[in-house]
Structure formats: structure tokens, C-alpha cells
């Protein structure tokens, strides 16, 4: 019998391993944000809202990459479709907030369903290429046809509202985005601990064995793909409702790459990692493109950002969350 001691290894990443702080840390962060809402104004407030939206987007991709083992390089498509549907369905007045959220998520889920049915028959690098191809297709539909105003994009006439919730109001935007983030995080946390999540973990670890055990894995993967698409659509809705404008660049492969980088940077396989990745990536991008911080280098932020990401990935193979867990362990 092999007696390699477990203490030699890092914390086991079992199906739903308990995390440091359990559900309390995310709850505390959400409560702190809720309390800080009124004082987070100006630039800082804008950044927090932006990061929260990108965290939702990154979390939606984490469901595929981390929880199911499906690396999609076309996730911006669902983000963009959600945003476009929000603007197009708003027409020339203030749309109903609840209706628009539902429409945006449904449209993204619908596109994910169509793409998923076709792409999930492939694996590995082929899956990456097929998801990328479908995202590029969506990109060019919005870029080169009049559906969404072509390459300039389209503007909202008025931001969505529902009774007292009016997205023209800065504070309302903040709380709607925070609520969406809490909803997304909670939904994915529930999925993780459920049988559905366990089956996804099994598919990630060894799909062949899952089929041999009796799981129709295709339908599990498709369900994950559609849920991830719907959540990306939610993030897209929030961007459209906040910025009041959408353009085809939202669907470009750069965005798909960036959200994938957030997940990798934060640490694949952890919901917190996706959130952390969204925070750090956005801050890095912001810092490295600010003249006041890095001087003339700010004009070459793509280069410095790229080098920083390479350094991060080389030094932290388990992502930022791996660093957090390591220091938590050493502190004990």
C-alpha cells in the first residue's frame, strides 16, 4: 500500500472541498459592499461597479472552465448578445428592468444552447476553436449588418427602470449590480455542492468514466453551457444598462480572452478565484494604462499587462487564490 502522507500534498481539491471561512467570507464582503454603497462615489464607485460586473462575467465562465473543464474562447458572444438585446428591446423609451433582464438572459441562453448543441460534440482544442468561431460569427453579425447599428454600436434612449428602481440613478445601478453578483455567486455555490455540480466535477475529471457509470454527460455539459451563457448575458445587460451604449467590440475575441485570463489569474476551480481575478485584472489594466502611475509606459499598457500576466501565471500556477490559501496555511 502506498503510504505517501497527505500532508506532503496541498489541500485536496475534492468535489466540493470546504473553503477557508466557508460562506461567511463572501457574505461579509457582500455586506460590506452593501454598507459602503452610498460612499462609493465618483471614480471609485465606477470602478467597483465595473469590477462587480466583470466578476459576474468571470464567474459565468468559471462554471465552464473550472467546474466542468470546458475551455471556451467565445464567452464574449453571450455577454454581447445580452447587452445588444437589452438596447434593442428597450426601443425608444425606458424599458422594464425585470423584463429586459429576463430577455437578455434568455437570448444569451438561447444562443448558448445553439452553440452548445454543436460545439459540445467536440473536445479540447477543437472545442476552443468552435466556440471561438461561433463568437466571431456573432461579432460580425453585429459589426457588419444593420441589426445593431454596425461598427459604431447603438445607444440607449433611456436606461431601464422598474418602479422606484431606475438605472439612471447611480446608487440603484450599484445595488442592482451587487444583487446580480450575489445571485450569481450563490447560484454557482449551490450548483457546486449539488449533485449536478458533482456530476460536472466528474465530467471534468474523467468524462469516459462518467458515461460508463450511466451519466448522459452531453446533457450535463449542455445545461452548464446554457447557464453560463445566461449569466454572461446578465453581465451584458448590466453593462448596457450602466453605460447606455453597446458596440461590437463587446463580442470580440479580445474580451473572450480577457475573461478567460481573469479566471486563470484568479485560480481555476474556485468561485473566489474568478472574483479575485476580475478585481486584479481590472486594476492592473487600469494602473498600467494610467500616465500618472507608470508614465510614458502607459501608452504601451498592452505590453506591460501581457508581461505582468505572464509573470503572474509563471509564479502562481494555482492563481491568486493559491497564494491566498498558502499564506492562510502558513498563518496557522
Amino acid at each position, binding site marked *: *500500500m*502506498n503510504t505517501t502522507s497527505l500532508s506532503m500534498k496541498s489541500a485536496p481539491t475534492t*468535489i466540493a472541498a470546504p473553503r477557508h471561512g466557508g460562506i461567511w467570507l463572501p457574505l461579509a464582503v457582500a455586506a460590506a459592499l452593501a454598507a459602503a454603497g452610498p460612499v462609493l462615489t465618483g471614480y471609485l464607485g465606477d470602478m467597483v461597479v465595473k469590477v462587480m460586473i466583470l466578476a459576474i462575467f468571470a464567474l459565468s465562465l468559471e462554471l465552464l472552465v473550472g467546474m466542468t473543464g470546458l475551455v471556451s474562447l467565445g464567452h464574449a458572444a453571450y455577454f454581447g448578445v445580452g447587452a445588444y438585446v437589452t438596447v434593442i428591446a428597450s426601443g425608444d423609451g425606458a424599458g422594464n428592468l425585470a423584463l429586459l433582464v429576463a430577455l437578455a438572459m434568455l437570448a444569451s441562453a438561447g444562443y448558448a444552447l445553439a452553440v452548445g448543441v454543436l460545439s459540445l460534440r467536440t473536445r479540447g482544442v477543437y472545442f476552443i476553436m468552435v466556440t471561438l468561431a461561433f463568437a466571431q460569427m456573432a461579432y460580425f453579425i453585429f459589426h457588419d449588418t444593420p441589426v445593431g447599428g454596425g461598427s459604431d454600436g447603438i445607444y440607449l434612449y433611456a436606461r431601464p427602470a422598474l418602479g422606484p428602481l431606475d438605472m439612471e440613478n447611480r446608487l440603484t445601478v450599484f445595488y442592482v449590480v451587487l444583487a446580480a453578483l450575489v445571485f450569481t455567486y450563490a447560484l454557482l455555490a*449551490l450548483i457546486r455542492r449539488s449533485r449536478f455540480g*458533482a456530476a460536472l466535477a*466528474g465530467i471534468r475529471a474523467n468524462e469516459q468514466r*462518467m458515461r*460508463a*457509470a450511466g451519466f*448522459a454527460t452531453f446533457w450535463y455539459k449542455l445545461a452548464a453551457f446554457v447557464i453560463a451563457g445566461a449569466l454572461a448575458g446578465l453581465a451584458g445587460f448590466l453593462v448596457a444598462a450602466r453605460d447606455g451604449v453597446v458596440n461590437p467590440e463587446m463580442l470580440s475575441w479580445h474580451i473572450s480572452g480577457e475573461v478567460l485570463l481573469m479566471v486563470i489569474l484568479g485560480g481555476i476551480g474556485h468561485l473566489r478565484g474568478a472574483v479575485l481575478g476580475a478585481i486584479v485584472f481590472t486594476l492592473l489594466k487600469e494602473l498600467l494604462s494610467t500616465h500618472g502611475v507608470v508614465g510614458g509606459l502607459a501608452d504601451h499598457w498592452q505590453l506591460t499587462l501581457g508581461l505582468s500576466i505572464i509573470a503572474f501565471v509563471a509564479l502562481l500556477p494555482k492563481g491568486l487564490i493559491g497564494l491566498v490559501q498558502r499564506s492562510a496555511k502558513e498563518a496557522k
Partner: protein
Amino acid sequence: MSTILQVEGLTRRFGGLTAVNTVSIDLRIGEVHAVIGTNGAGKSTLINMLSGEIASSEGRIRLSGADVTRQPQPRRALSGIGRSYQRTTIFPEFTVHENCRLAAQARNPRPWALWESARTCNASVQAADAALEATGLASVAARLAGTLSHGAKRQLEVAMCLATQPRVLLLDEPLAGMGAEETDRMLALLERLKPRHAILLVEHDMDAVFRIAERITVMVNGAVIASGSPDAIRNDPQVRSAYLGEEH
């Protein structure tokens, strides 16, 4: 004893190559039916067709009388055909118990019940406990599967198969790479499983095969050249020249 799995004229062609050529075998509860043959004889292809992993070109597979030839693998697994793999296919990063619980979950899926924790699914937990008990792995249930010894991984491979509560077990070289002691333990396990399961055993260890099998089928180049009791196979001149060699 009644036949549970009936295979008639099963054939699989890969382009011009006929990997399995009109093979007919029966599996019965209470019997170990061994399939032996040289490398490339088509044994693994046969198991892959029986488990539904690859489609058959011709022939028919009946499970308890029902035609399952066209059923996809997951459906067939739920109908009661379990299999183990020649190359160990466990979930190395999960615990031993989780490996079995996840396999058992196939019978109690409820994927929509997001409010229920996977860990508290009683039926799956019990099936996993029983499978670990039967295979003697209960004492290492909390270990990460990837840290087990080779022999224990092979046992886990069978335990995961048992956790899905199959009636037919298709075992692809369960003894591969095992030491004498581990082999004895595995054979004892198969003896215990025999009364309630129909077992198809593909194996290269001839001593083990002749110790445990009630019936042996010999394949050469995709076709069956002999099938019968161990004694009949041992004395079959065709088998002796084609496969067993002179020392047997």
C-alpha cells in the same frame, strides 16, 4: 442458470479491418466467462461494444431478453451493464468514497435539485459504502484516490463499477500489473461477486483465468476459435497451437 446477456454475431469493422468477427457469447448470473486471446485479438473492442462505448457493425446484444444493441452507453449502464477499464480510469483528485458515491449517483441523479447537497444523497452514500465494503477499501475511504497503490486503484476501479449496482460486470484486465497477493485478493473478490453477477473477464493471466472461470472463450484475429469449460479449452488442439503454447 438463466442467460442474462446474450450476444449474437457481433461484428465490428474499422475500415477494411474486422476487429471483431461474428462473435456470439452468453453471460449467466453465477458464472465468470473469461475471454482470452493475444494482443489485438479484439477482446477490448468486444467489451467496448458490449458496454456501448462503440457501436457494433452487425449483430445483436440482448440484456434479459431486451434488445440493447442501439442503446447509448449511459442508458446501457443504467440497464445494468457495468464495466471496468484496462487503463485505470478513476477520479484521482477525489477521495475514494467520493469516487464511488459519484458513480452511484448515476442511479439517483436529480440534477435539477440544486438545493440538495451531493454529499447527503443517502442512496448514493449507501451504495458507495457497500461497494467499498465489498472490495475491502472501506479503510481507505477518505484517502485521495490518486494516492492509492496500483493494486488498490484496480480494486477501486471495480468498486466504482459495483457502486452503480450492475448485474453484468465487464472487467477488462483487472489483474494487469498486480502482484501475487493483490491477484489473490481480486480473485477472492470475484468469487464473492459471482453468485449475484454475470462476469465477463478479459485477462492475460492464464493461471488466474483457469482458477476462476466457469467458461472460457478464445479469440484469435477477432474471431472465436473455441469456447467451453476450462478443461475443454486446455485440451483443445487448435487453442494449444494458436495460443497456449506447448507448456500447458
